[in-house]
C-alpha cells in the first residue's frame, strides 16, 4: 500500500512540474471567466446556460488532460523510460498500475476541483445580478453532484487509457484508441436511439448486439447531471435512480477495467 501511495505521490508531483498542465489550467480558467461575456447573446434561462458553459469547460479541460498528459504519463515506449526505472525497483506491476492511476486521479481532481471552485464562485457571484425570471434556481448540492458525475466520467476514461496502454505500446496509438473509445461511447447511444425511433429498419439480433456493446462502451450521458443544477428537484429525490444507479454502474466499470489492466500488465512482457 505504501508503495502505491509513494508512486502516486511521484506521479502527482511530476504532473505539477509540467508546464503543459499549468498552461491547460490557466487557459481553462480564462475560458471560464471570460466566457461569461457570451451570455449577452441569450435572453432567458441564463442560469442553465452559465452552468452548461462551466461544466463543458471542465469536461473539455479534463479530456485534454487525459488525452495529452495522462496518456504521456502512462504510455510506455522507447521515449519513456520511466516504467523501466520504476519496475526495476521492488514494486509490482499491479502496484505500478494502481499507483499511477491514483496519482493521475488526484492530479485530475485537484485540477478539476480548482476549475469547479472558480465556476461555483463565479455562478454565485453572477446570480444576484439577474432577476429571478432569468436565473431562478441554483443549488450548490446539485452542482457538487453534477461535478462528481463529471469526475466519474473522466475517471472512467482514465482507467480505459490505462487499459489500452497495458496492451498497446506508444503514446500516440494509445491516444487515438482512447479517442476512438470516447467516440464509440458517444455514438452508440445515438445509434440505439435511432433504431428505437425506427428511423432505420432493425432486427432483434442487431438491437441485442448494440445492447451488448453498451456493456463495454457505456453511455456516459447518465452521469450528465448538469440539468439538475438549475432544477427544482429535491436532493433526496435526485439521489436515487438518478445518482446511485449510474454512479454505482460506472464505479464498478472502473474497478473492472483497472483489474483487467493489472492482469494484462502482470502477464505482459514489457521489454
Amino acid at each position, binding site marked *: 500500500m505504501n508503495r502505491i501511495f509513494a508512486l502516486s505521490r511521484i506521479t502527482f508531483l511530476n504532473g505539477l512540474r509540467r508546464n503543459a498542465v499549468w498552461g491547460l489550467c490557466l487557459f481553462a480558467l480564462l475560458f471560464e471567466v471570460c466566457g461569461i461575456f457570451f451570455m449577452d*447573446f*441569450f435572453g*432567458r434561462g441564463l442560469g442553465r*446556460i452559465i452552468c452548461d458553459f462551466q461544466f463543458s469547460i471542465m469536461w473539455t479541460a479534463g479530456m485534454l488532460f487525459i488525452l495529452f498528459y495522462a496518456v504521456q504519463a502512462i504510455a510506455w515506449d522507447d521515449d519513456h523510460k520511466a516504467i523501466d526505472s520504476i519496475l526495476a525497483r521492488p514494486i509490482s506491476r499491479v502496484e505500478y498500475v494502481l499507483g499511477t492511476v491514483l496519482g493521475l486521479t488526484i492530479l485530475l481532481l485537484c485540477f478539476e476541483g480548482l476549475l469547479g471552485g472558480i465556476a461555483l464562485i463565479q455562478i454565485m457571484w453572477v446570480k444576484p445580478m439577474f432577476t429571478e425570471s432569468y436565473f431562478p434556481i441554483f443549488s450548490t448540492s446539485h452542482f457538487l453532484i453534477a461535478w462528481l458525475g463529471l469526475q466519474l466520467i473522466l475517471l472512467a476514461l482514465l482507467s480505459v487509457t490505462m487499459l489500452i496502454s497495458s496492451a498497446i505500446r506508444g503514446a500516440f496509438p494509445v491516444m487515438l484508441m482512447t479517442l476512438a473509445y470516447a467516440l464509440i461511447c458517444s455514438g452508440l447511444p445515438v445509434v440505439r436511439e435511432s433504431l428505437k425511433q425506427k428511423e432505420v429498419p432493425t432486427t432483434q439480433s442487431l438491437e441485442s448486439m448494440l445492447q451488448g456493446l453498451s456493456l463495454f462502451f457505456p453511455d456516459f450521458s447518465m452521469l450528465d447531471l448538469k440539468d439538475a443544477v438549475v432544477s427544482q428537484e429535491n436532493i433526496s429525490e435526485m439521489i436515487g435512480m438518478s445518482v446511485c444507479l449510474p454512479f454505482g454502474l460506472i464505479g464498478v466499470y472502473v474497478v473492472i477495467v483497472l483489474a483487467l489492466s493489472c492482469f494484462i500488465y502482470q502477464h505482459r512482457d514489457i521489454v
Partner: protein
Amino acid sequence: MTWRFVFVPLFLVMGYVQLFLVQEKQSMVQEVNLTPALPTQVLKVLAHTYMEQMVAEILFIKVAVFTGSGYQRDEKNLDVLANHFLAMTALHPKLEDIYYRTESALPDNGKNYVQIANQILESGRKTYPTQVALPYFEGFNYYYYLDEPVKAAELLRLASTYDEKYQWLGHLASTLDARGGNIRVGLTWLKGMYASMQEGDEKERYAKDIKDYEKALQVQLALERFKHKTSRHAKSLSELVPSELIGIPELSAKFEFAYDAGKLFLRVKNSRKKS
C-alpha cells in the same frame, strides 16, 4: 545593409496592413450567409454527449449573430436557418431562447417556415408544459399565418389553463373558435369562464358576448335543420327565413355573421388579418 533591415520589414508590415484593410472592406460588402449545420446525429456524436448543450448554445450564438445582421431572406438562407433551429431543439430542448428566437425569425417567411416553427414550438411545449408563451406563439402562428382559427383556439385555451392570470386567453380562444365556425365550443368555454368570474365590468362584457354566441348557435342549428330537411346547404342565411327562423337574429355592434358553404362564422367586426 542597415537600410535593408529597416525598409524591408517596414514594407512587409505596411503591405500586410494594406491587405488587411482591403479584406475588411470586402467582408463588409459581402453578403452574410449562414453555413449549414452538420446533421443532428453527427453533432451528437461529435459533442460526446456531455457537450450537446454547449454545441446547441454555440449554434444559437451563430444564429443570433446571423439574424442580427441584414441577411438576405432567400430560400437558401431560410432553409439553413430552419435547419439550425431544428438541430438546436434536438440537442438542447431545455434552452428556452430557441423557442423565442424561432418565433421571431421563422414564421414571417412563408407557410413552410411557419410549420417548422410550430414543430419546434410543439417540442418546446413537451419540454416546458406550463410555459404559457409557447402555446401562445403556436396559436398565434396558426391563426395569423395559417388561417386556422380553430386550431389556434385549442392552443390558446390550453394556455389559459396554466394560471389564473392567463384566463383572458380563454376569451380570445372563444373568439377564435367562433371565427372558425366552432361556435358551440366557444360558447361552452365562455359560459364556463363567466360562471367562475367575480362580478364586474369584465363579467358584464362576457354576458353580452354570450348573448351573441347564443344567437349564432340558433342560426347554426337552423342551418343544420335546413340541411337535414333539404339535403343541401342553404345558399344564404336569408333562405332560412321563414322556414327555420323567424328572422336572422340581430347581433351587437361587436360581431357579425359570415357564411360560406354551410358553415357559419361569428366574427368580430373590422378585425383584420395578414393577407
